């Protein structure tokens, strides 16, 4: 072995099942076990440990496909894309895309979006603290300038749009949920927001207009502009009830005039 770095690369390749057989030559051949057996223990530690971490981060995806399928898919993912961050909270950022292209999961076209929702959940869980706006916050602005108000989203707020009822699937397949009711995929897509107004992460599906409205606000558009965008997509969009919902849902932390 030419250097410590080459040795560690070979051990990495062995751990992620990418060859790396040259590592065995560097392992002392002592006592009862061969170098290959000793390295095998570390391969198990790497792949099983990371696999368990993926299970913990994607409990709904896990429940949808079962442990055996999930573990196989997780292992293939880890071998294809070894993690680059020791924070387990960031382990599966690329997992949804991998799931979307995983041939054996092609029969579950919603699976990748469910995994995407779980990535958003993990983001929201670890996001920075911010106090949500109190429901009466908009009353403090002069009525004639209300349309100019700009809102700051909670750091936890994320949007997941799917061609499948992704929020319904997520809610029905929580680990404590005994027997999920059947969800018709023909019911159409869902647009979900994921956020953490306090200690608990919330997942909620929104209508087309509301989703567009909230997303526009989250990107810094004024109430007027966001409303116009929502009306263009959903002509029956009702501003006042949506504003009330928006404030009681506590997606935003700050309101200000530009």
């Amino acid at each position, binding site marked *: 072995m030419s250097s*410590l770095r080459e040795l560690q690369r070979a051990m*990495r390749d062995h751990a992620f099942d990418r060859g790396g057989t040259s590592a065995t030559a560097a392992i002392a051949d002592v006592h*009862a076990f061969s170098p290959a057996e000793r390295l095998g223990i570390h391969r198990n530690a790497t792949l099983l440990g990371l696999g368990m971490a993926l299970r913990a981060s994607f409990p709904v995806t896990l429940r949808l496909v079962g442990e055996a399928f999930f573990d196989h898919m997780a292992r293939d993912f880890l071998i294809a894309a070894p993690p680059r*961050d*020791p924070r387990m909270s960031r382990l599966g950022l690329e997992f949804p895309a991998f799931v979307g292209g995983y041939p054996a999961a092609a029969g579950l076209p919603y699976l990748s979006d469910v995994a995407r929702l779980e990535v958003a959940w993990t983001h929201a869980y*670890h*996001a920075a603290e911010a106090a949500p706006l109190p429901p009466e916050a908009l009353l403090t602005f002069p009525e004639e300038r209300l349309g100019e108000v700009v809102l700051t989203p909670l750091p936890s707020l994320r949007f997941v749009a799917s061609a499948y009822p992704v929020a319904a699937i997520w809610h029905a397949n929580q680990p404590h949920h005994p027997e999920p009711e059947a969800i018709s995929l023909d019911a159409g897509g869902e647009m979900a927001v994921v956020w953490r107004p306090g200690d608990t992460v919330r997942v909620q599906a929104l209508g087309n207009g509301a989703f567009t409205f909230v997303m526009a606000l989250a990107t810094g558009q004024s109430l007027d502009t966001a409303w116009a965008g929502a009306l263009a997509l959903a002509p029956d969009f009702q501003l006042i009830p949506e504003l009330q919902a928006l404030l009681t849902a506590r997606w935003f932390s700050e309101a200000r005039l530009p």
Partner: protein
Amino acid sequence: MTSPIFTLPARAGIGLKPEHVAGLLEARPSLAFVEVHAENYMGAGGPPHRQLATIREVYPLSVHGVGLSLGGDEPLDLDHLEALAGVVERYEPEQVSEHLAWCRIDGHYLNDLLPIPYTDYSLNLICDHIDQTQTRLKRRILIENPAATLSYAESTMRESDFLIAMVKQSGCGLLLDVNNLFVSDSNLAIGAEDYIAALPGEAIGEIHLAGHHLKQIGNAEIRIDDHGSTVAPEVWSLYRDVIARFGRRPTLIEWDTDVPDLEVLLAEARTADRHAEFASLGGHADVFAS
């Protein structure tokens, strides 16, 4: 001899688990300290930080890093070092520790604490990385001995000699994991008694105790460190030897898989205190032999 470097009370503490936070805050049992893995608190906010901030007001804190890869033959991950510094600055723990191990190469993270060969090259490498870490954190850190199932043909030093040289060269302290030492000795016959006798006791700032399991491979059994059960009798025995020789130290009960009820952890911590008290009074080990 210089005074011991430990900065936590020299009694037993436990690893902090989210499911135990409510119970700890309610009953506030007597514990020398709690220890957390730094990597679990590198997010910006959320329940983990809310819990730790509350716990930190009640108990002394040890921050234990598992992802810095001090023994990796590549530059330290500066983002990760900054994240560790962020946790240390946020909670101002009494103690910070990391591992004599590598877990990352070419930016790929293995989620496993692998031993390194013990050579002059790796000694300089890890001492440079410890120096960089201690400089950034503005404090001395403790380095933990690995639980090894393999060793390297190119090693030119025993692990204990490597630790002694590392302490001397980098100014770090030692976190002596007695379970790891027993596992390594059982798997690789490194000679636990001579190992302990060789260590500079004043550098030992903390002790780890945990469970391990036996794995059958072919016709033989190998010991795997898994932090998933009670401390083995042989490990208690080694622990008493360490305390009898060096005096009492802050001692962590680690339990990271199949985490039991808080009561079980607290009982194990009390057992550790009983062993330590007994050993420090010069008592004979047979009392605890059963």
